[in-house]
């Protein structure tokens, strides 16, 4: 049995910006619908962690030994962003972590590479994007933030392959469609009709070749995902490929925006959540050429979906319908650094120290507690001496990142530093023991109460002297439209 898709995870941020809110502030025409917005404490690394946690939540077998992280908007250069994802997921030290950064097309390469790497072991592809753009422009309005993770591997340990990657083909062309120089947040694009003219033949050629290699004809395609940031080219290509009209997958752009590099994986996840066994799925990426990946759903796909549902994972449909859509445009601009606001009269936060951070990786990245072997008391953060029985160095480490809890008490702190004041702080009692006081996020303090169910989420607390300070926060467990927990674990 060859390697295929074992699992997938989608993360869409809590916040949505109504496109109408942009026009209401800036004047001029207002768009319709919403776009997804990463919160002030999220970046492509944290989005990727959340997607990857969801991809791994329903798996029973061994952890991935290759981690590929891709984004056009990396939190760091030089330093490997995938290492932070690796640490937050608590993957084994022998698992490799690689970044594929910069261009939108890297997302397609990440899926291919993970699929190729997987075999005797599992490979995790994480594609994340966070897209801004100048105020009032189409990039800001039509793009979105989110991440998708896909686990490739062979069936083992009760896990099954839901879809096989049966063929791939690509075309490349050097031309100016969109570009962004390092350090800039807004992309430049050439006049649209030119790109459409160049793209369509490239997409046709790659897709035709991929289908040929898969041994199918366009009419055999049951689900067609065409993704790219060039909206006109995507639309034209969809029609030009000779695939049945009903096979074209409706994208989620009206509600969450175009996720850029993560747009194609999002479409793939969307399809995997409803495709019938045997279905042919073509995923086409339109970016500086074209990539066409042909998947075939296996007979085990329904069982894979059942395992996901049992793990409490929300579907793409539910995630898209969730979230909160009343983000004020001024806050969006502030979070993106497009609106410089007067800070509180408080000192700047301190840069974490590298050795101290390294020593506490188990706590800071993986959110591990220690349980006393003598009396069972749980310590967050880890402690060498037991609070209850004072036994020394008899502790077992236990990962708490995926353990739920409830709010014991909380407060709204209008004095503490925050990029988006006020800070909401909560004392969280975890299921099975352990208490920790932490910041909350994605929270409406007016809806918070003692006993509110929370889950942990990996966030960027702040950036000081160019160092991103990642740690965990609690957030209310959102209830999706079907009553399932948003995010699941």
């Amino acid at each position, binding site marked *: 049995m060859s390697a295929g898709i074992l699992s997938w995870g989608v993360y869409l941020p809590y916040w949505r910006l109504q496109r109408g809110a942009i026009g209401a502030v800036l004047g001029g025409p207002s768009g319709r619908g919403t776009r997804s917005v990463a919160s002030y404490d999220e970046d492509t690394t944290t989005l990727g962690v959340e997607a990857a946690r969801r991809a791994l939540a329903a798996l029973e077998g061994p952890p991935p030994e290759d981690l590929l992280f891709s984004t056009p908007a990396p939190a760091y250069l030089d330093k490997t962003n995938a290492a932070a994802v690796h640490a937050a997921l608590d993957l084994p030290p022998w698992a490799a972590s690689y970044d594929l950064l910069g261009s939108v097309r890297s997302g397609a390469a990440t899926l291919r590479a993970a699929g190729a790497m997987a075999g005797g072991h599992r490979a995790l592809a994480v594609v994340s994007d966070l897209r801004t753009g100048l105020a009032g422009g189409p990039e800001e309005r039509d793009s979105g933030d989110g991440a998708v993770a896909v686990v490739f591997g062979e069936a083992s340990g009760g896990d099954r392959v839901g879809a096989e990657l049966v063929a791939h083909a690509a075309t490349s062309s050097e031309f100016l469609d969109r570009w962004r120089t390092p350090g800039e947040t807004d992309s430049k694009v050439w006049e649209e009709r030119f790109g459409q003219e160049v793209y369509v033949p490239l997409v046709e050629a790659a897709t035709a070749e991929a289908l040929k290699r898969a041994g199918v004809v366009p009419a055999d395609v049951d689900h067609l995902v065409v993704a790219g940031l060039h909206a006109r080219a995507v639309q034209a290509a969809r029609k030009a490929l000779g695939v049945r009209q009903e096979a074209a997958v409706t994208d989620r752009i009206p509600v969450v925006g175009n996720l850029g590099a993560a747009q194609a994986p999002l479409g793939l996840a969307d399809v995997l959540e409803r495709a019938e066994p045997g279905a042919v799925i073509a995923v086409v990426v339109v970016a500086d050429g074209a990539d066409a990946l042909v998947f075939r759903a296996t007979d085990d796909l329904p069982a894979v979906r059942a395992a996901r549902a049992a793990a409490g994972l929300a579907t793409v449909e539910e995630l898209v319908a969730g979230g909160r859509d009343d983000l004020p445009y001024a806050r969006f601009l502030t979070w993106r650094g497009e609106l410089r606001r007067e800070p509180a009269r408080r000192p700047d936060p301190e840069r974490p120290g590298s050795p101290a951070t390294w020593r506490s990786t188990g706590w800071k990245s993986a959110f591990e507690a220690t349980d006393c072997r003598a009396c069972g008391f749980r310590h967050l953060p880890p402690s060498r001496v037991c609070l209850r029985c004072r036994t020394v160095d008899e502790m077992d480490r236990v990962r708490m990142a995926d353990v739920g809890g409830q709010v014991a*008490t909380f407060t709204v*702190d209008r004095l*503490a530093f925050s990029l988006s004041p006020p800070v909401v702080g909560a004392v969280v*009692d975890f299921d099975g023991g352990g*208490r920790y006081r932490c910041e909350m996020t994605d929270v409406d303090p007016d809806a918070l109460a003692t006993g509110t169910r929370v889950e942990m989420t990996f966030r960027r607390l702040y950036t000081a002297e160019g160092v991103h300070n990642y740690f965990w926060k609690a957030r209310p467990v959102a209830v999706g439209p079907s009553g399932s927990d948003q995010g699941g674990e």
Partner: protein
Amino acid sequence: MASNGIRDRVAIVGMGCTPFGERWDKGADGLLVDAATEAVASAGVTFDDLDAYWLGTMFSGVSGLTLSKPLKIDYKPVTRVENFCATGSESFRNACYAVASGAYDLAMAIGVEKLKDSGYSGLTRVHPVGDGTAAALSSPATFSFVAPAYAEKYGVDPEELKEVMSRIAWKNHRNGAVNPRAQFRKEVSMETITRSPLVAGDLGVFDCSGVSDGSAAAVLCRAEDAHRYTDHPLYVKALSFVAGPGGGAIDPEYDYTTFPEVVRSAEDAYAQAGVTDPRASLAMAEVHDCFTPTELVLMEDLGFSERGLGWKDVLAGTFDRDGELPVNPDGGLKSFGHPIGASGLRMLFECWLQLRGEAPPERQIATVGPNRNLGMTHNLGGGPGECVSFVSLVGPEPSA
């Protein structure tokens, strides 16, 4: 193993205390010189007579040089101590032990803090290089967990509890209004307090102590030598200090309605002084009213009120300056602000004035008598669940 105490072995024979406030006019140096010179004058001695110094400061300097340079101390031991909000009291406690041991005849405990120069609101401090995971909550936020927990545990209506909190602030501002050394010297109406803008949780601006600069000092000698310097010394009856294991912050059993560290230090202090009924034995108490719910819970932790009934005593005026047990008759941290190194000694200064009958008539308490003449100073440093606590008892008679 026991906490034996040094009851009646050390006497306070002189004190000084600067006006607290936004002292743009003076740095830590100047404030130290003011408090030290007032204290030596009060004791009728000169700096040459002093054998050793204990300096309490959290942010305003490190090492004994912080004091020896401005005072031009002539090659004598100066020990700088820090212990959060009990920093000033720590200088006093350690100087007492040095005198009691016989190592020195005459010692000074002095504290200072210069907070207003930072340019920031609230307290700021430099932390050791860390991993960046320390919770970012401010002090008001951590103490704001107390009020709702108290209200829930004892079935107090939250609005009534807000009134209790406001009344504590009202009382302390009323006391401070007639104290020339206080930072805020005017009464504040209940309505103003209750409706002040929120800082954290239910805590409004007027539920929080202020930020100020100040310094205070005491001159100490062995009890048997006290009358060489003054006819009216104060004797040290008890000194207790505890640092907790920080359990409340990580223990689901902790309910935010008590400070176990305070309970333990109070029990220790009462045992050292032989006090069995603090509400009847104490003529006054200066307690750490950093936030109004703190003072409420302290009334129970220090044994002044029954558990769950402190709020009723507050409303009944029990702790007013003319009440059954005056608490913070000088105005407390509410009126003085909280220059950390100075606060504990500022509290002791109020005991010095009140227990010896030297407070001005308009604010002299009426509770001091032959059978009831103890004063308490208390500090709490840290926050609910993880803190240090200091309790001292002093009195004008050599034995109770």
